[in-house]
C-alpha cells in the first residue's frame, strides 16, 4: 500500500472479501491494449452470420446505421464540415469494440453472446471498415495488435479555450 492520504484513515471492517471467482465473473472491462480479453476467437465469416441475425435490425445492412449507430465508413471525414464518426473512422482502439459489444450489445440482450461470437462480430465490423481482411480470425492477441486509423486523433483537454474577459 502506498502513501495516499486515504491510507492514513481508520478502517471500518465493513464489506466481505471478494473471491477470485466473484471477481472473474464481473471483471469484464478490456484495456485499450487488449488486457483482460478472454480466450477464444471468431472469424469475419461467423461474424457476418451473427450480425445478420442479431445486429442488422438496428444497425442496417453493412452497418450503415438505423435506430442504432452507423458502424462503418467515414474515414477521412473527421476534419470536414460533415464529419462521420464510426468504429472505422473514429474509434482509437479495437479492443474497445469487444468490450462494448459484450457489455451492451445486442441492445435487446446484452451479455448474451459467447466470447467467440463477440470476437466474430467485432471482426466483421472491422472488416466492413476495411481494417481487417475478409478472411480474418480475431483473438485476444490479433485484436489487440490492430492499429485503428484514428488512434492518434485524440488530444487532452486544453480548456479554458476561450479568452477570459
Amino acid at each position, binding site marked *: 500500500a502506498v502513501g495516499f492520504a486515504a491510507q492514513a*484513515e481508520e478502517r471500518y471492517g465493513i464489506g*466481505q472479501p471478494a473471491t477470485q471467482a*466473484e471477481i472473474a465473473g464481473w471483471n469484464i472491462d478490456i484495456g485499450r491494449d487488449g488486457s483482460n480479453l478472454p480466450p477464444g476467437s471468431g472469424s469475419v465469416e461467423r461474424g457476418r452470420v451473427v450480425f445478420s441475425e442479431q445486429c442488422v435490425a438496428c444497425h442496417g445492412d453493412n452497418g450503415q446505421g438505423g435506430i442504432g449507430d452507423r458502424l462503418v465508413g467515414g474515414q477521412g471525414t473527421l476534419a470536414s464540415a460533415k464529419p462521420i464518426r464510426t468504429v472505422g473512422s473514429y474509434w482509437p482502439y479495437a479492443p474497445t469494440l469487444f468490450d462494448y459489444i459484450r457489455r451492451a450489445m445486442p*441492445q435487446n440482450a446484452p451479455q448474451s453472446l459467447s466470447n467467440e461470437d463477440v470476437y466474430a462480430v467485432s471482426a466483421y465490423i472491422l472488416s466492413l471498415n476495411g481494417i481487417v481482411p475478409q478472411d480474418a480470425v480475431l483473438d485476444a492477441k490479433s485484436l489487440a495488435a490492430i492499429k485503428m486509423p484514428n488512434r492518434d486523433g485524440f488530444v487532452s483537454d486544453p480548456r479554458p479555450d476561450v479568452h477570459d474577459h
Partner: protein
Amino acid sequence: VAGLGGSGALAESGNNLPPNVPEWMKAPGAPMGSQPYGAPSTYEKGVIKNISKTLPQYISASGRTPLQDLDGIITPNGLFYERHHGGVPTIDPAEHRLMLHGMVDRPLVFTMDDIRRFPSQSRIHFLECSGNPVYTKPYGKTASDLVGLLSCAEWTGVPLKTVLNEAGLQAGAKWIVAEGADAAALTRSIPIEKCLDDAMLVYSQNGERLRPQQGYPLRLLVPGFEGNMNVKWLRRLKVVAEPVYSREETSKYTDPMPDGTAREFTFYMEAKSIITRPSGGQKLTAKGFQEITGIAWSGHGKIKRVEVSVDDGESWQDATLQEPVLTRALTRFRLPWHWDGTPAVIQSRAIDETGYVQPTLAELVAVRGVNSFYHNNAIWPWRIDANGEVSNAQA
C-alpha cells in the same frame, strides 16, 4: 403553468372569485391518506420531463428538467433529468452488490447495508449532461430544450475515499473504472485525484433513496464532472493504472474539433448560466416590473458573480445571488427589471471563483467549430418582442 401567461382577468365562471365563496371551501377536501406518497396538483400536470416524441428509440435517450417552470435551486426528484444508455433497470437492493477490486490490498464486495454503515455526508450539487446543448441548429425553444439536462439535489452517501481506504490503494493506482449494473454496463474512468477528493458513493437524493432514473440503489457522484461520469446503478469499481478507454470515453463524450482531432477526458463542466424567467416560450403579460431570474453553476467551484444584460449585450449589471452560494451547486440569480414594452434581448453570464467568464456561442464556435457536440456552455440570449413573447435569440 408554463410561463408568465395569464392575467388578473376574471375566470370564465367567476363562481370562485370574490365576493363568492369558492367551491373548494364548501365541502371537505381529500382526506388524510389519499396520497400516502404525494403528487403534484392535477393543475400542474403539464410540468413533466421534457422528452422528445420523435426519437428513433427510447432505450438510450434523455429526458430534460423543465427548468423554466422551476424556482430555487433544488430540483424535485420527479423532475430530475434522465440520461441512460440501456433503459432504467429495476434493481433489488437486497441483491445489489458493489465490487471494489483491481490495484487494492483487499478486494471487497459490499451490500447496500454495508455501504450505509460507513460515515455519511450530504451535499447539494448539480449534475449536468455534457451534451447540453449541442452547437448546431435547430436550437431548442425553451430553457429546458437548451439546457434541461441539468438538475440539482441534496445527495447523501459515503465519501469514495473512505471506501477506497477500506480496500487499501496500491502503488501506481491512478484511475478508477466505474461500471453500472444497467443493460449498457456503462463504464467510465475517473482520475484517482477526484476519487480521493470530493467523489461520493450516493444512495439518497433529496432525503429519500435515489430514484431508479438516478441510479437506485447506488451511484457515483463526481461533483462538477460531466453527468455521464457519475455512473448510476454502480456495481463495480476497479482501481487501475490508466483509463480503460471505454466506448463512452472514446466513441462518445470526446469533443470533436474542426481539425479532425478530438479532445478526450474533458471532464469539467465549465461555468454557465441561463435566464429561466422570462425565457423561451413564456410571455410577458404586462409592461412594468419584471423580475429576471435564472440559474448559474460551475464545475470548478462557486459562482462568484452573474451579470445580466437587457440591451443585447451592450451593458451588463450584477444580478443578486441567492444565499447560500454552494460549491458545484446551482446558484439562483435575480435582477429587478422594468420592461417598457419594446423589443429586448436579455442574457446572463456567469463568472466562477476561478475568474472564468462564461463565453458567447460565437467565441466557442470560433475555437471548436459547430461539430464539437459536448461542453457547450455558451451564454444564451432570449428575445422579447413587442407582444411580450419570448423566444430563442440564436434560433
